[in-house]
């Protein structure tokens, strides 16, 4: 059972890590738009002014 002394801190650390990731995601607005990204990936490549500029730079 001594392994629990190792397992409990690992569990809690992992929990804190994921909770931290969730906090970051929420605060940085990752859940604000959960619909468009998937659709943008499906739509054909759309050339924008910025893409054009980048092409020119290359």
């Amino acid at each position, binding site marked *: 059972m001594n392994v629990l002394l190792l397992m409990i801190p690992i569990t809690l650390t992992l*929990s804190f890590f994921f909770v931290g990731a969730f906090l970051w995601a929420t*605060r940085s607005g990752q859940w*604000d738009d959960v619909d468009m990204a998937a659709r943008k990936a499906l739509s054909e490549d*759309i050339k924008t002014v910025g893409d054009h500029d980048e092409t020119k730079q290359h």
Partner: protein
Amino acid sequence: MTAAFNLSNSNCDYCRINPRRAADLFCCDGCALLAQMEHKKLDPSSDQGPSLEDQKLTLDFGKQQGGLTAFYFQVDPLACEACLQGLVRVREFYPAIRDIEWDRNLSSLKILFYHGQELPTQIYGFLKSLKLNPKWLSRDSLHKVRSVHRQRILRIGLLAALAGNIMMFAVPTYVGIAPEWKPLFEHVQGLIFLPVLLWGALPIYQSAISSFRLRQLSVDLPLALAFLSGSLLSYASLIQGNGQIYFDSLSGFLFLILLSRFLMENSIANSLRAPTLETLFDNPYFKVRSCSNRASITSSFEDRQIGEIQVGDLVQVPQGGRIPVDGVLISEGVEIDTSWLDGESLPRLRMKGASVSAGAKVISANALIRVECEPLKTDFAKLIGEVSKVSEKLGTSWEAKVGNWLVLACFGLILFLMTQIGSLGSSEVFKRSLALLIVACPCAVSFAAPMARARASFIARKLGFWIRDPKVWDRLRDPQKIAFDKTGTLTEGILKLSQDSPMIDEHLKRIILSLENQSQHPIAEALRKAWGQKELFEVSNGREVVGQGVEGSINGHFYELHRRAVTTGGAQLVLRRDHREVLELDMDDSGKPEVLAALKELQKTRSLYLLSGDTTTRVHTFARKIGVPVSHAWGGLTPQEKLKVIQELAPDVYVGDGTNDVLALRSATVSVAPASAAAEAKAAADLVMMGSEVHRLGVLFEIGAESRKVVQRNLQISLIYNVFAGAAAVFGMINPLVAAVLMPISSLALGFSTLMATRKLRDIERSAQISTARNP
């Protein structure tokens, strides 16, 4: 007939998902526009770069983010998935857009332009053509709402994580962990439970405190008491080491309660919230010449926002714009659309010196108005302010009343137990009271009822109804008295060529359209819509004669297209060539055919009433047309008179669309607004129809009846459980631990009941779609 049973043939021609609107190939205006863009290669963007107005808007509304400028718009809920795809495609037409984001919950759009290439006016126009009713949002106005929403997501997510972790440490203690490890596992649970107690349950505490202050019984009061008592007892047991800890049940219970409320909130059309006066105008700037005091007198017109207009200033309202102030007309003669106030389809002619009211639209030409009443103090502004006030309708929720009785009974029993301290001992009384509080909390109110409403709202949304107030389902009880506004709701509020009009040859159509080419008058719009695009003649000396019509010379002949008379429900036009009459045309606002059919159907089983600001004669004519008794139809009503009729008549449902309906919509038991309604009317309504879903009102009533059945059944289960478990707790047959186990089991039973009923609701949804497909 075979096609009638083929669902795919009756679905939208563009998205192929939603059923078509009646007498249309598409399910929504967005799909119609996107199809047009695809087939005709319509390009809404122009090659022009940013205008002066774009630059000003960028300074006032744009937010700099690196090399990009972000603009925020509040938009109406999207009618279908294809509209969402259409938004993605916006970038095809505007290469200056780097990215576009849509927040489903707040229904807001964030559009990122490359710096220096901002085209906010063009993108605003595009969103308007998609019928999304965009509203300008300042940099910070969205931030406040968004941070509240993020906070709620954060709370739900963290509660799930905390409850899950507590459960992970609780399960080994139930299944026989070695005794020496048990205290450690319990202490870890106590540690993880601390943020749940101190932060997670804050909304429940706040609601309980406010209900206590307002002296109103609320379900959150016993919830907060049970939660706090359970938590304190658990910590006391943890310190004493007697094993009576309920951290897992308490955190899981709290998570379920907050999750059900979160889902219910998300099921409603948050974006249709009350508009502010600042967001009601297409252009946030007005051309103003200051004359109010000597210090600020200006010789030329300046761009000012609505809050900066003062009494005495001169305001120039462009053709098609909405008047922001009450004032006096300085221009010679202007036609003004006052339908927001009086339901009149035709614009009214106002001469120099006439009074004009805020909210009306300028039709024929630019109008110069001297401000008599500041924009924020007009009747129109007051009406808009009314919309944002909290509705009193929420108090009528009948299952909340049953919940309150449960709470009262619970407290009564606790008082009874306290009187028994002498015989039972204080420790036993505390234990029994705690068990009673935990076991008897009215779950049907706090958990199952919101869930049932949320499901009903989701299904109604699929049928084209957006729910503004989730508790509307409690008030929608087999409606017998249904009142309608006429103009805009049942009729289109715009003139159309009468079906009795004679056949007109192509040449005359081209002449009429050429004369009307520059006119923005509703008659010109109606003719363009009826006859479509045609090759136009060159018109010399063409002009619009305010209040009369248009005239000009074509190929050496002088033509006049004048309005001869305003008839009941329409207008008569006459075309003269060289002063000799050649054609007569009738225009009317007679109503949408599919709506008329739906009304006749509703009339068979329910009592219909008509309320309108339009003239009594027109309202009575329309009433006779749809078979409504003339005694059930009122015309010439002001907003206040409409409110009075609604209060006296007390209809079960009121359907209205104009600013003049706002007070009536707020007062009616259940209020419905169509998609084409004014923003303030939509915000005042309980339900918004995404199109002309009048023909689906019957199905909506069925959903209401079904969701009520679910809530009723849940209440019965809850009452039976509460009576038996409560009695067991009072008589000391169950301890708080057993109560904490019973409580989630009862919650699961109620959840299952809701799920079973959801299948029935799905059946309604399926049958409604089939019926729409059979009767497109």
